[in-house]
């Protein structure tokens, strides 16, 4: 799956369509910061509740910026201070990066199925 996306990125770049990372000329610092982050929905803490995780995408592996931790009551908990700065699983980071390299996603939810560093299957929903 990932190599298909990577090949796609190479192909798009080769024909001048701008695959790979994007630039944002003239951005304000706030807007630039926004482009360097992505929000994903995933089970970060293994409690079977989807958590809303903001990731810093400036380098691999991605680092956690903020977390709204899902709970069984439906009312999330802001667990950002606990998780901030922690490193996201490297394999999951790479899968998200492969997807983002060619993404046209704006206001979309895209499910990515990948394996984490332990070889366990993980589903991450990228929310752009």
């Amino acid at each position: 799956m990932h190599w298909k996306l990577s090949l796609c990125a190479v192909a798009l770049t080769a024909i001048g369509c701008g695959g790979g990372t994007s630039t944002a000329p003239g951005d304000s610092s706030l807007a630039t910061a926004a482009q360097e982050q992505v929000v994903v929905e995933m089970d970060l803490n293994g409690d079977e509740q989807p958590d809303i995780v903001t990731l810093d995408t400036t380098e691999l592996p991605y680092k956690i910026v903020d977390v709204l931790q899902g709970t069984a009551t439906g009312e999330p908990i802001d667990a950002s201070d606990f998780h901030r700065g922690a490193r996201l699983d490297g394999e999951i980071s790479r899968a998200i990066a492969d997807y983002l390299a060619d993404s046209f996603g704006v206001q979309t939810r895209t499910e990515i199925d990948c394996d984490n560093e332990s070889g366990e299957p993980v589903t991450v929903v990228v929310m752009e």
Partner: protein
Amino acid sequence: MRILVALLALCAFTFAQSVASVTPECASPGDRILIDGEDFGEEPTVTIGGTSVEVIRHTATKILVEIPEDLAAGEATVDVDGATISMEVLEANAPLVLHQSASTATAGQAIILIGRRLRNATVELRDAEGTAVFMTDLRGRRRAGFFKISDDIATGSYDLVVVGGAEGNPESCARKLEIVAAGDATIDEATPAAQTPGRAIRFHGTDLGPLGLCRVAWTDEDGATLRRIGIANGYNKVYSRVPFQATPGATYSIVITFNDGSTTEAGGEFKYEVGNFAAPMIVSLNPSTGPAGDLVRIAGTGLFAGREIPKVEFTQGDVAVQARVYAGFVALGDRNDNLIVLVPGDLADGDYDVTVTAGDQVSNAEVFTVETPALTVTSMTPTRQSARGPRRPVVIKGSGFGPIADIIFKAPPAVSGANAVFRPIDWKLSVTWDDGQGGDPLEGTILTKNDSRIVVLTPGGWRNPLAVGTYTVRVTRDPGTDSEETVEAGTFTVQ
């Protein structure tokens, strides 16, 4: 000339762009927007509000661009080589909502918003006249936040607007939120299908609330009822487990009773067939090599069949030795079950097939190599003390002083106590001082040890220190398998 005109007409026909939509329909300068349409050609040129913008990437049907920084708020025309569409440009710091967890909700429900510039914002629900009938802080951070709808809001259609905390309190676009009355609690579905006893199950439906603990009754075809506790999220999910005592393959009628006394009975009958246990499967042993008496973590699937503690055996040839199960936990979701077992202390060195029996089914075999590490000493310090007693304990370094693994259990174990630390069998270990005069060697007091380091106080300590002389220090270990072994650590002088 005619040919040229014909070619130009053909090109115009071939690349007749059309723009169908812009997503999102409103956004601030610096935000990205996606233009959907047809026949955008090889190098489309795009302007927004008359300002030319750089195309970040595009295909024949999609163009990704960014709204220019200096564009004023208000309606703006997006132009792709002459094909146009309108969009609303928000103020520079206006909150942007890209995702809303629900567009229909009941009073008291939590709504999650994902977007940009959401920090320090407030949420307003406005009626048809534009009057804010409910206002609350959006809790969370810049990219994601949530709020809880008040319990007493009237049903109806509202505009949801996020008001930013930046100067001028810029507003997001309005999004629709329909508040509906809570109806009869109804179970529509349970996932996963055919779950086995003891494992997690999730009921999906409508009006599954109020939130908090609830009781899930499982009634079989003979009318016998099993009960489990569940947690309702207050609107569409209940989390619980299939009762351990449920019969695999049997069908149960499910009724959930909530903490206000309401039940799912009025919403119609819901039936669920309990799954049959699959054969256990070992995925990994960690470690896969170690001495008898060590601890091993077995990870795999289906390692538990109901409440019964699984049987773990180490087999070599025709001889199978049952291992003691220290602890284990049933996995959530797709993760592996875990078992912590003790390698039987009387196993000789060699390869053993490890199997797990859960219910009546036996797993695949994974090889564990029992290997007693060599007993060696590489250093001893200090090597002397005064006749008045030791100034500090003696530190002996080497290998093979005892089993290696300490396993710390952080997950709630199903078989043993939670948050426990498990240690392997402690081998008998002694350190002796022999003066070579033919008497019994004197034994030091071991203060601490691990597999590669012993900290020992010389015999007699400070109260009755060793007599002046020269001693031979020896380390003796007994793993409990009739294989006592001694190694010399060095010479120790008392002067």
